Structure formats: C-alpha cells, structure tokens
C-alpha cells in the first residue's frame, strides 16, 4: 500500500512535467494547427541558458526567471522568422520546418555547450517527505513541480478567459477569418501563442532536467511523453493536456515501479500507440477528424 502511494504521488510529479510540455504543444496546435516538434529542443536550450545564469550568479531563481523569459522570446522569434513563411502552406511544410528546427537547435546546443551530461539543480530539497513514519515518495521539490505547473496552467486559463489578449487568442484559434474581419491582428496573436508555448516549455525543461540531466537531446523522450499527454487530452484542450499528463505520469510510474524502470520509455510509446488506436481524437477533444 505504501508502495502504491509512493508510485502514485511520484507519478503525479512526473506527470505535471509531461502536462507542461503537452500544454505548450496544445497552445501552438490550437492557434496554427502546427505540431511543434522542436518544443523539447527549445526547452533544452532555455534550460542551458538557465544553467549558465545559475553558474554565473549563484542564484537558482535568477536562472529560473531568465529561462522563462528566454522561452518567451525564443517562441516569438521562431514564429516570426521560421514559421510565418510556412503558415497556410501544405501541412507537410511546418512538419519539415519544426523537425529541422529540432535538429538545428540540438546541433547548436552541442556546439556551444558540448555533449556531456550536466546535472541541473532543483529549486527545493529532494529529500523524501514522510507522513508520520510513512514515506510518501515525494519531496518538497516534487510539490514545487506540481504547484509550478498548476499555477502556470491556471494563469493561462485566466488569461484565456478574462483578458482581451485571451479573447483574441481564442477567436484567432477557432476562426482566423472571422477574427480578421473584426480587426484582430492575427499575426501578432499567433506570435503571442508561440511565445506563451515557449514559456511553458521552458518551465517544463527547468522542472524535469534535475531528473534527466541536461544534454542536447535530453528533452527528446520528454517531448514524446508530453506529446502523448496532449494527444490523450485531444491536442485541442489545455485541460486535456493536464489530465493526460497526470494519467500518463501515474501509469508510467506504476510500470516503472512494479515492472522495472527500463520499461518506462517502452510503456510511454505503447501508451501513445494505444491512444491513437483507440481514441485518436483524445479524451477531451470536441473537434472532428482532420486530414493531415
């Protein structure tokens, strides 16, 4: 029973990271119908930036803030420079462009930072917490991870729901033509969507890198799991991405805990395939099938 509790709570912590990556993918997918294969690589790069800043300044939080800000900027710049020319082209073009970006960013990171594994600090202690004498399988840092992603998700939800920028984002995502008719500058709105995705992705990179170590391809498997989380949720639904991430995190942690941790990546891919076969439109998606 103790084991079960530990695996569950530990899974929630991992799941929140997948949820964050999933959320960043949903943000872009909703606005542009583009799946950003370079989302993980972008997060890797901003985490390297964080590491550099943390090393220089000695402050985790300065590095944390700089990474989030650079995620915001990176997302906006990539949309403006690389994505804008292929928007509204054949759906294959953005696929090729974002995969190209993935390779490019990982290459650049390798040139600048080298290929070796680097450890990345946590925000809080990783010592396991206990309820009385019962180990919970989670640390203060795990609580921080969950709280950070939840806060980011709630902030995004509030932005979408209560602000003019959020209304523009929703209008442009659902019906770009109608939005333009009403004077919404859709180009700017898409840039904002990518910037927010870059920010959330950067957060995921910061939160997961203490566990995975940091190296140029360190986010690849996290991207696959984040994508799976988003697909479970239906790719269109921010809430779906969070729930999908939690389901995935907990399931994988059971698989790792009971069956052996080597099986986790296998189970991740198996989960993706299973979801795509059984319910390709996801648990939360209202949209219909679309040809890609």
């Amino acid at each position, binding site marked *: 029973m103790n084991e079960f509790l530990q695996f569950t709570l530990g899974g929630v912590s991992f799941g929140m990271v997948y949820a964050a990556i999933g959320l960043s993918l949903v943000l872009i997918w909703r606005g542009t119908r583009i799946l950003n294969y370079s989302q993980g690589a972008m997060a890797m790069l901003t985490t390297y930036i964080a590491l550099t800043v943390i090393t220089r300044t000695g402050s985790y939080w300065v590095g944390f803030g700089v990474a989030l800000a650079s995620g915001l900027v990176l997302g906006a710049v990539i949309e403006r420079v690389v994505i804008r020319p292929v928007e509204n082209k054949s759906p294959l073009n953005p696929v090729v462009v974002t995969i190209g970006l993935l390779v490019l960013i990982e290459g650049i990171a390798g040139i600048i930072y080298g290929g070796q594994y680097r450890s990345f600090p946590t925000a809080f202690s990783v010592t396991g917490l206990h309820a009385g004498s019962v180990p919970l399988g989670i640390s203060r840092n795990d609580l921080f991870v969950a709280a950070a992603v939840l806060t980011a998700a709630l902030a995004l939800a509030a932005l979408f729901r209560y602000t003019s920028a959020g*209304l523009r984002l929703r209008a442009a995502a659902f019906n770009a033509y109608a939005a333009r008719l*009403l004077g919404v500058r859709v180009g700017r709105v898409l840039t904002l969507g990518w910037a927010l995705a870059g920010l959330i992705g950067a957060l995921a990179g910061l939160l997961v890198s203490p566990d995975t170590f940091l190296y140029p391809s360190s986010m690849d498997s996290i991207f696959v799991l984040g994508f799976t989380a988003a697909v479970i949720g239906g790719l269109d639904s921010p809430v779906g991405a969070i729930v999908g991430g939690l389901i995935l995190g907990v399931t994988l942690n059971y698989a790792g805990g009971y069956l052996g941790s080597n099986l986790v990546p296998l189970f991740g891919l198996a989960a993706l395939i299973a979801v795509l076969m059984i319910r390709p439109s996801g648990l939360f998606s209202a949209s219909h099938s679309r040809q890609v």
Partner: protein
Amino acid sequence: MTSAAALTVEHVVAGYGGVLALQDVSITARPGTITAVLGANGAGKTTLLATISGFVRPRQGQIRLDGTDLARRRPEEIVRAGVAHVPEGQAVITELTVEDNLRVGALLQQQGRAERSRALADTYQRFPMLAKARHRSAGTLSGGERQILVIARALMTRPRVLLLDEPSLGLAPKIVTQIMDLILRLRDETGLTVVLVEQNARSALAISDHGVVLNVGRVVATEDAALLAADEALRRHYLGF
C-alpha cells in the same frame, strides 16, 4: 455612431489566378444610404466586397473611404479604418458564446472596459434575442439568429460603412423581412452607409436608395433603386424578376 462616410470604388480590377472576377468596376456608396449590388451568380458581387474589405487584393484601381485610400491594405486595417464586412456564410465563431462573439467585435475600440460594457448593453437593447442567448454557444443558434449576431457583431466595431453579403441567403421569408427592416433602421437611426449584395433583387431594391448591377465582372447599370426596379428590360435580363 460616427458620421457617415462615402465609399468609392474606382476602376478596380481583381481576380483569382488567371480569372478576372472584376474588370474595371466603379461604384459609389453615398453617405448614409443603402446601395444594392445585384447580379447573377458569378457576376463578381462577393469578390467586390472581398476586395473592398482586403481579402482579395485589387490589381488595379482605388478604393476610398472618404479621402483615405484602402486598396491593398490588410483586412484587419480596413475594418479599423471603419469598413465592416459581414460575409456570406456568416462567419460566426461557433466555439465561442454569443457574448464572446460580440466582445471580439468590441476589442477593436481603444476605450476601456466600461465603454465596452456599455456598447454591449446597447447591442442587447437593440437585439433582445441576443441578450437572451448571450451565454449560449453561438454554434447553437439558428440561421436567422446567426445572421443577426454577425450583423450586431460587425456593428460593435463601430463601422462607418457596412458591407453585407447575401444576408437573406437560406433564411425563411419572414426572417428576410426582419433582416431587411433591420438594415433600413440602421441607415435611418445611425446614418450608416450600407453596401448590400443580394441575389434577392426584389427585396434588396425595396429598401435601397441606389442600385448597381454587375454582370460577369462589369457594371452594366447604376441607377436610382426605384428606377432600376422599374426598368423592366434590365430586370428581366439581369435580375430575373
């Protein structure tokens, strides 16, 4: 509502690929009047509105709102300049609520929250049906309700010129009458300049001040609406009634 404006289209040539849908088209919509643009399918009516609102780039010619040239500007900028386009097929954002649809229209105004709420309240007063449906998803509205929503939403941008593309299309006769009454009231109460594209020439001419007939991309008649309606040969030849 701001003061009425004149919209002039001068020698516009526009089309898609090798096909010219508009060939040297000139029309004038005088301030505070309704101008009907009539003609058969493929006459270029919809292209004319899309060209005015910036979705189709004219290859030649000028489009002026009072003094300002709008030709070759982006659609977002043209609506900001004061020309609102209600396209055929209605372009309701079905995933948003009725109120959110209206609020998107109000975003364009630079004023604060209070001003926007008042604009919303005014709209609900004018269209009680929308007030009742305000929290419903716009996708659940009927065809007539959607048409009223998109017109009301376009008005939220505070246009000086309203372009309406086939507002009666697919609607029951009773609702067509309501929509035509609404357009008439808008002109009378707010001094809005309206360009009304219609296949339903009879009901369009009944409320219009001026009529323009297009045929395969060219203007074949431009006349006082009453005179157009009385011109039997023209009616039979181009308008089918």
